[in-house]
């Protein structure tokens, strides 16, 4: 971490779930955190309030990761208010399950744009500053679905597998500059995104998960916070499962 400089983190999709928990975990380690949100400003403000109540520094920032102009504007705001982004957590995610044979092109595009293109756009905007600082941490929130297929999740798992590929190529591109790029692959975690899953599908996941329970956003956040921290400098291009053994 650059000496004598407050480290600034941006987490996308941070108004709730894993993103929100990640903001709190990062704020607790002393980082100034930008809580990125698109559709839920109240949730983002709640995350900010919690981080501040913990003694941390946080602001809410509107960012639509699918839109270059929005991404650029959000980074500009973070730079003006907190400083240059040294830690980027690409967490914003989207899923709409459905069998491929009847899956709408628009849904496919929406999934890939948020989960994969969005991570790329944020990363591309963050890299010049990290390269200049010779320090940076990028953590991509992928999914167990990137590693093992799921019927009904062709678009989601393809986009998350793409994110793993992005992670590995980037790790090689910028690994010589003090920047690490890693991915975490959560299994079934209780969040708003997994709420629409049917009881039957939840039960199936539970049976496949050796831990015998679902994960919490905090359990994923602590792994992200480690990868974002100074002690993880030699972890690069790694794909870390946080899934209770689902993909073991």
């Amino acid at each position, binding site marked *: 971490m650059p000496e004598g400089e407050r480290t600034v983190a941006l987490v996308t999709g941070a108004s709730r779930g894993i993103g929100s928990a990640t903001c709190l975990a990062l704020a607790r380690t002393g980082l100034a955190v930008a809580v990125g949100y698109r559709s839920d400003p109240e949730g983002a403000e709640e995350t900010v309030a919690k981080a501040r109540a913990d003694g941390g520094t946080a602001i809410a920032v509107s960012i639509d990761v699918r839109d270059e102009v929005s991404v650029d504007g959000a980074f500009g705001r973070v730079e003006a208010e907190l400083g240059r982004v040294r830690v980027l957590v690409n967490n914003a995610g989207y899923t709409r399950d459905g069998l491929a044979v009847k899956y709408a092109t628009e849904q496919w595009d929406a999934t890939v744009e948020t989960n994969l293109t969005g991570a790329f756009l944020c990363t591309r905007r963050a890299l*010049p500053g990290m*390269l*200049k600082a010779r320090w940076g941490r990028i953590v991509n929130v992928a999914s167990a679905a990137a590693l093992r297929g799921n019927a009904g999740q062709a678009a989601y798992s393809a986009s998350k597998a793409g994110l793993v590929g992005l992670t590995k190529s980037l790790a090689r*591109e*910028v690994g*010589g*500059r003090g920047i690490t790029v890693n991915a975490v692959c959560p299994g079934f975690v209780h969040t708003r995104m997994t709420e629409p899953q049917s009881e039957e599908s939840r039960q199936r996941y539970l049976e496949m998960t050796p831990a015998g329970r679902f994960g919490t956003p905090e359990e994923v956040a602590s792994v992200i916070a480690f990868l974002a921290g100074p002690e993880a400098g030699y972890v690069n291009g790694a794909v870390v499962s946080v899934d209770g053994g689902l993909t073991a």
Partner: protein
Amino acid sequence: MPELESKVCKILAENLSVPESQVTPKARFQEDLDADSLDLVEAVLALEEEFGVTIPEEEMEGVQTVGQAVQLVASKMGVGA
């Protein structure tokens, strides 16, 4: 133009960590200055920041020498080279 050239050379020397004396118009990035593709991109980012210009990736492709880089920056700034 000579002023622009010396400014560009100074930035390139800093970014590529080579002595300014080596950064001559004829110097080739890869062969003479030991710059890899990421070094070059970083140097371009620094030039963009310094001169307030945008240099698209496809226009960087043909750039092999310091002189060509100076020309490119000059053309982006609307200065005859």
